[in-house]
């Protein structure tokens, strides 16, 4: 809960309002957590792996991809663990057949929405989406591909965006807004017709807000954002900067 600013300062003080510690279980293993930690982060602290795509350490959570879903005893629906907080005595299951099955289906649907041709992609061999296929045991897509037509915008001097490879994870939007402070990226449209845009859907090269820092390119999990001059399989992303930037901004929360 948020209080008015003068009260919030008191509420934020750990000695006045200590963060509660909860105990709950993940896959039958007893774990403890601060009440404001997500199930995903508690799982990872305890060496339990949950696949993710839109989550990136150092950025706020968006809950966009749904690959991190887990089962919570007593709840009929599956919950995205990156945006779900634990409750006392909650029983979380990360690896039931049902969870694994839905994760694979979600991944397959991501492949049907756009046009992923790994063999000719700049990110071949260095792509989070591609690695997830082996991690989740996806051997083929059971659904019809949508064959949607998407543009490539290469108007920026140093970078290009290929919407065929975008998974709408919004990492670019978040890093540009939260770390670079430019908020060049946003999203327009609805459902699978959504697309990420620069400024008010102008060509990236004409954007007046973009500083050319390249952070969006580095955090993009796929071949959607890349540096110009990189050919097939040459685009490796550098993400080491995020924790440092977070530290320098004094932002401990995320």
């Amino acid at each position, binding site marked *: 809960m948020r209080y008015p600013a003068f009260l919030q300062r008191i509420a934020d003080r750990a000695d006045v309002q200590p963060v509660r510690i909860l105990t709950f279980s993940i896959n039958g293993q007893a774990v403890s957590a601060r009440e404001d930690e997500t199930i995903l982060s508690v799982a990872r602290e305890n060496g339990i792996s949950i696949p993710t795509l839109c989550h990136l350490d150092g950025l706020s959570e968006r809950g966009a991809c749904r690959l991190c879903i887990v089962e919570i005893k007593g709840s009929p629906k599956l919950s995205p663990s990156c945006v779900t907080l634990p409750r006392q005595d909650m029983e979380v299951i990360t690896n039931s057949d049902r969870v694994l099955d839905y994760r694979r289906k979600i991944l397959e649907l991501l*492949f049907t929405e756009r*046009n*992923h*041709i*790994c*063999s*000719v*992609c700049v990110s*071949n*061999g260095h792509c989070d989406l*591609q690695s997830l*296929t*082996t991690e989740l045991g996806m*051997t*083929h*897509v059971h659904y*019809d*591909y949508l*064959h*949607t*037509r*998407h543009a490539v915008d290469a108007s920026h001097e140093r970078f290009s965006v290929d919407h065929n490879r975008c998974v709408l994870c919004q990492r670019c939007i978040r890093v540009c807004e939260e770390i670079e402070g430019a908020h060049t990226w946003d999203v327009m449209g609805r459902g699978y017709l959504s697309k990420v845009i620069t400024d008010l859907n102008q060509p990236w090269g004409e954007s007046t807000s973009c500083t050319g820092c390249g952070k969006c390119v580095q955090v993009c999990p796929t071949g959607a954002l890349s540096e110009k001059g990189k050919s097939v*399989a040459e685009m490796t992303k550098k993400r080491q900067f995020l924790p440092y930037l977070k530290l320098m901004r004094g932002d401990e929360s995320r």
Partner: protein
Amino acid sequence: MTRIRVATTWLDGCSGCHMSFLDIDENIIQLFDRIELVYSPLVDFKTIPENIDLALVEGAVSSEADKEEILTLRSRSKVLISFGDCAVTANVPGMRNQFSVMETLSRAYIENSASGQILPSGFVPKLLEYSRPVHEYVTVDLFLPGCPPPAGVILSILNDLIDGRPLSLGGKTRFGA
């Protein structure tokens, strides 16, 4: 030992998966003690025989001829493998799926043609509306992704199949590999 009857075909692919198969080098000698190639672009049989034990299919289904080939091959094969990314996802041939058949044809035969500028008709198989993965037409027993799948993986899968071992790719090959 009776040799198992193997067929291979390429539909809309570049032949790269077959080249990767040949990259098993001298292992092919031992392999051919155990298999008999009854139909393949690598050998000279013109029609698909009956009673195939194992069929390897390279390439996407893109034309009327591909469709006919895959339906016949499936009906005569016990086990059928989608062999490589074009067969599994439509891959590069599928890049035309964003465009209509007419747009694709005129790009190739009119816009980029210095002379002639005639659309093919009659003497080449008619393109289907979309270039599709094999499993959208027939039941597939095993998916072998990779562009192309590495030679070692092809060899070990074939040996597992012949010996009746459980099949698992275990992340040894992936899309685009």
